[in-house]
């Protein structure tokens, strides 16, 4: 109890908790769940973008997309490492993903249907991610906070690239503009869902905020995202697919329509449009790569033995 009090005190004072510091089990568990979910999202998120990598319509755009996907793999790595400092191995985390026990962002269960979706993902999905992540640069767990600093810098770069891709489309041929509008139409609502259930259905929020694992509520972040994104859509000349969207002078915020929570919970449950395909792709990659990982281990072992013998 003295430990707990001391811990709570440090966190309240915005001190960083480090791997070897004492922490409550629930704090550790919540963090592992949150960080590994974030790591899995980066890795699964490579798939919808990778779907258009081989079809990118110019060499420059192909290089930008490949670099972006590479960054995501890198983020996945930092985050797995951060989670490992909490005593959970990467193997365990990956098995939890493959068994469906661990989650990843619901958004990656939607399909990328045209090239414009690559722009929409950069602009909206990375945009939403930034909203979530910027406050986490001051999260209470040191390794996580430091990973976030680096990730946020790259994410905002990605967001600008996504916006730029769409800008090119809306200034292009009528087909290109239609493609961009269609993409916004499909990605808008799933992006809003990225912030999670509404506050009144998010029971752990209070504790996570006290622990500085979360620093703002789902609804606050969602509102901030809408407020930031709607003007950008106007800049692009694209229509947000929400008839209820209006500027509320009094609140100083946009009012927006009701999210289809039935769809949200279905996707969370693992029933997203491409949920099965995504998990299968990850599992297949992992299973088909097993012999490579085993070979690398065997080689390391032999090398260790050789240097021992030498």
């Amino acid at each position, binding site marked *: 109890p003295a430990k707990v009090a001391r811990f709570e005190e440090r966190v309240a004072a915005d001190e960083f908790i480090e791997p070897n510091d004492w922490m409550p089990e629930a704090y550790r568990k919540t963090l592992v769940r949150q960080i590994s979910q974030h790591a899995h999202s980066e*890795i699964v998120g*490579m*798939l919808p973008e*990778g779907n258009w*990598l*081989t*079809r*990118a*319509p*110019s*060499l*420059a*755009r*192909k*290089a930008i997309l*490949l*670099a972006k*996907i*590479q960054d995501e*793999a*890198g983020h*996945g*790595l930092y985050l*797995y490492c951060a989670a490992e400092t909490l005593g959970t191995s990467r193997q365990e985390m990956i098995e939890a993903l493959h068994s469906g026990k661990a989650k990843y962002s619901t958004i990656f269960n939607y399909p990328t249907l045209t*090239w414009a979706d690559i722009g929409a993902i950069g602009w909206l999905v990375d945009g939403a991610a930034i909203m979530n992540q910027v406050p986490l640069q001051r999260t209470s767990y040191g390794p996580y906070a430091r990973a976030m600093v680096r990730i946020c810098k790259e994410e905002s770069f990605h967001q600008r690239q996504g916006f730029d891709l769409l800008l*090119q*489309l809306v200034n*292009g*041929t009528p*087909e*290109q503009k239609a493609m961009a509008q269609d993409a916004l139409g499909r990605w808008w609502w799933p992006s809003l869902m990225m912030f999670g259930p509404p506050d009144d259905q998010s029971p752990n929020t209070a504790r996570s905020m006290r622990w500085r694992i979360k620093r703002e509520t789902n609804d606050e972040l969602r509102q901030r995202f809408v407020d930031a994104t709607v003007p950008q859509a106007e800049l692009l000349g694209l229509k947000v697919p929400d008839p209820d969207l209006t500027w509320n002078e009094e609140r100083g915020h946009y009012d927006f329509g009701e999210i289809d929570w039935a769809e949200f919970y279905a996707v969370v449950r693992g029933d997203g449009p491409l949920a099965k395909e995504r998990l299968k*792709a990850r599992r*297949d*990659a*992992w299973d*088909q*790569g*097993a*012999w*490579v*990982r*085993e*070979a*690398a281990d*065997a*080689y390391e072992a*032999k090398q260790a033995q050789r240097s021992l013998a030498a």
Partner: protein
Amino acid sequence: MADPLFEYLQRLGDDSLILAQRLCEWCGRAPSVEVDLSIANMGLDLLGQAQLFLAYAGEIEGKGRDEDALAYHRDAAEFRNCLLVEQPNGDFAQTMARQFLFSLHRELLLEALTASSDTRIAEIAAKAVKEVRYHVELSSDWVIRLGDGTDESHRRMEEGLDWFWRFVDEMFELDALETELASSGIAADRRALRGEFDRRMTEVVERATLEVKPSQWPLSGGRRGRHGEELSRMLAEMQVLARAYPDARW
């Protein structure tokens, strides 16, 4: 007949472009996140080299085609890459075998080209050779690790090298066009690189505890646009948007 320099630059650019495209197919499907990262890394280097060589090719041609026009609006028979780079990925051992054989030849070629009398080529080569040197390292490491790993990885690695053996000679062919360009100091004499290639290749293969197979009937034709069945299929995917919307800029 097209300008020989234009032809030559397409050869250099297409080798990079087509291999980069193959590497892109691995995206999100590699044996580990670390491997995904390093494949993306090589893909990016190769894409960059392709852009530089093809942009220069377009300038030499002088018909207003840029690197994208060349990448996205030529048919398979107009591509000038060697056969090796267009071969399907196969398993990870095959991918690394292909990468090793190509990168080793490419490092030697680029090294020679840093002394090209064409300063633009020399500049591109100077930048690219550093990147490719790292690809040689990375792929050699995998050849050794897999060759000297488990029984299964040994077998796969051996089969992987064996599978691509017939495409190696083509990379050292010096046809009339390159002979002429080499005599004026623009191109490199590919034949002169073979000894060093064999030496270094053998060194890695031996460290990998693998055996080099007796030479097979060598295949060639890529430099004349005579490719295998897979290139047109790959291009159908790669070029689909550019072809479907010819007026669009991206």
